[in-house]
């Protein structure tokens, strides 16, 4: 795989630069509105990861690895299970069952009871984004040194 940019086409690069912010915004919308409209952490995470993949495809492997560094991705990957488990353990702290969100006193009010769901979805979205992009980079970053 070539190290530098795959394409020198100005059109493709410009359209990619214009297209990436709306894609990421749509991904955030899908994650944050997961408890109101169809969507959720998994779907929105994949949408955001697709924008990163588009960037890496157009601007090359090096540029993509520079934008989302491996160390940052390795830090973000376990964040979803950690947030999920932490919220579950907080519920035990307030003498509820594991993942019984209504045991948390702030969330007993039905108006904002979906906050826990949103937090969990944000964590899952972060994990899915990092995992999908990491798998893409691991497959695309193989050198054919054979």
């Amino acid at each position, binding site marked *: 795989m070539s190290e530098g940019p795959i394409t020198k086409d100005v059109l493709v690069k410009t359209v990619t630069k214009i297209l990436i912010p709306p894609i990421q915004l749509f991904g955030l919308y899908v994650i944050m509105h*997961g*408890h*109101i*409209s*169809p*969507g*959720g952490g998994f779907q929105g995470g994949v949408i955001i990861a697709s924008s990163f993949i588009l960037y890496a495809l157009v601007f090359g492997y090096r540029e993509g*690895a520079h934008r989302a560094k*491996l160390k940052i991705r390795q830090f973000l*990957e*376990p964040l*979803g*299970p950690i947030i*999920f*488990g932490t919220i*579950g353990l907080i519920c035990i702290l307030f003498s509820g069952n*594991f*993942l019984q*969100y*209504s045991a948390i006193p702030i969330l007993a009010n*039905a*108006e*904002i*009871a*979906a*906050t*826990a*769901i949103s937090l*969990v*979805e944000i*964590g*899952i979205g972060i*994990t*899915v984004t*990092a*995992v999908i992009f*990491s*798998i893409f*980079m*691991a*497959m695309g*970053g*193989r*050198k054919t040194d054979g």
Partner: protein
Amino acid sequence: MKKGIYFLVLLLFISTLVFTAFSIRSFGAPPNSDMDNYIIENGQEETGANNIISGVVYDYRGFDTLGEVTVLFTASIAFMVLIRRLND
């Protein structure tokens, strides 16, 4: 002889499938609807989520989803160990 046995087994298989297909419940009439009725009626007040699928996936079946995310994370680790070369 052999063909006869094959034909008999095939007939048994087909008759089982046809019998099952005719004895199945009609669409929209699940055998036990207590739990789905409960979730449909109380899901919005209990979880606060208008999207009932999110209410079920992230609240009622939260433990299942926790397992799913862990599976994804573990798959990523396995992928890194097996596929990745140290040129990132």
